[in-house]
């Protein structure tokens, strides 16, 4: 019976991803990253636009994250809450947040050491990106038990390795990695959203 209760808890956690909106948002962020890396690979070194891009990268990334969070909330309020209800999730505890920050620093440190000690490792940046993105996606998949998340994490791992083996120039490799993964996430999220909207028509005000 405790297992049944665990299933109910997992189903409740899964609800955040039921409409595909989060996937569309993460996919869109990946497409912005892909565009950024593509421009990095194409613009001549030292050009004003390239310097502007490099300086604005952090702004672009954090701005994109804030904007996507805002849009996810807006879309959920408009589409999901009137159809299947509202759920707010517990914020991560201080300890959980510290552990997450620790893991990020550990991965960054590991990558830095890898680049310093092995000259070949630069070619493996798409594979390392695949490892990081795939692992984060795998953690979500295990937590909520969604099959499509497992498949997406496997895709991230494989895509990274394949692009590294094809030995693209570093920025082009990253542009392809985030571009392909972003398209897959947007398509998968779009499909999920379409199915969700078909299965859950909007309720009348009287039914609310």
């Amino acid at each position, binding site marked *: 019976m405790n297992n049944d209760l665990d299933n109910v808890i997992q189903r409740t956690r899964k609800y955040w991803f039921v409409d595909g909106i989060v996937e569309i948002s993460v996919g869109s962020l990946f497409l912005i990253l892909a565009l950024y890396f593509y421009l990095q690979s194409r613009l001549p070194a030292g050009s004003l636009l390239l310097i502007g891009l490099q300086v604005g990268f952090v702004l672009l990334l954090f701005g994109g994250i804030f904007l996507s969070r805002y849009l996810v909330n807006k879309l959920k309020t408009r589409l999901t809450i009137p159809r299947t209800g*509202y759920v707010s999730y*517990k914020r991560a505890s201080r300890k959980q947040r510290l552990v997450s920050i620790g893991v990020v620093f550990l991965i960054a440190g590991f990558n830095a050491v890898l680049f310093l000690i092995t000259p070949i490792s630069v070619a493996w940046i798409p594979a390392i990106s695949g490892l990081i993105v795939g692992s984060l996606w795998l953690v979500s998949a295990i937590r909520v038990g969604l099959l499509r998340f497992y498949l997406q994490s496997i895709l991230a791992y494989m895509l990274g390795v394949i692009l590294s083996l094809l030995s693209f120039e570093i920025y082009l490799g990253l542009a392809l990695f985030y571009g392909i993964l972003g398209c897959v996430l947007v398509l998968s999220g779009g499909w999920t959203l379409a199915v969700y909207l078909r299965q859950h028509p909007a309720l009348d005000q009287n039914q609310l």
Partner: protein
Amino acid sequence: MGFNPQKVIDVDRLIHEPARLLIVTILSAVESADFLYLQRETRLTKGNLSSHLSKLEAAGYVDITKTYRGKIPLTVCKLTESGQKSFINYREQLKYIVDNTKGAPR
């Protein structure tokens, strides 16, 4: 160590009722959930769900607030600290009973 029947007798009957157990389990996994979500997940009628929520609220296990998100009116339910503790305690009691009756003849 022998089986303690008092643990069976002491099971929280308010949570033990299947519909209320489902409501409390859902609420234990989130910060809060609204009436519509609980109704869809438990498949209870509005009246039934209201009645169970009232009992949980009266026991101090659930907080119910009426609010708005945009223009949508929401009845938001949240498990209180006391509700959370009682649910954890209930699961431990349940585990104890299941673990200690595994070898029982069918």
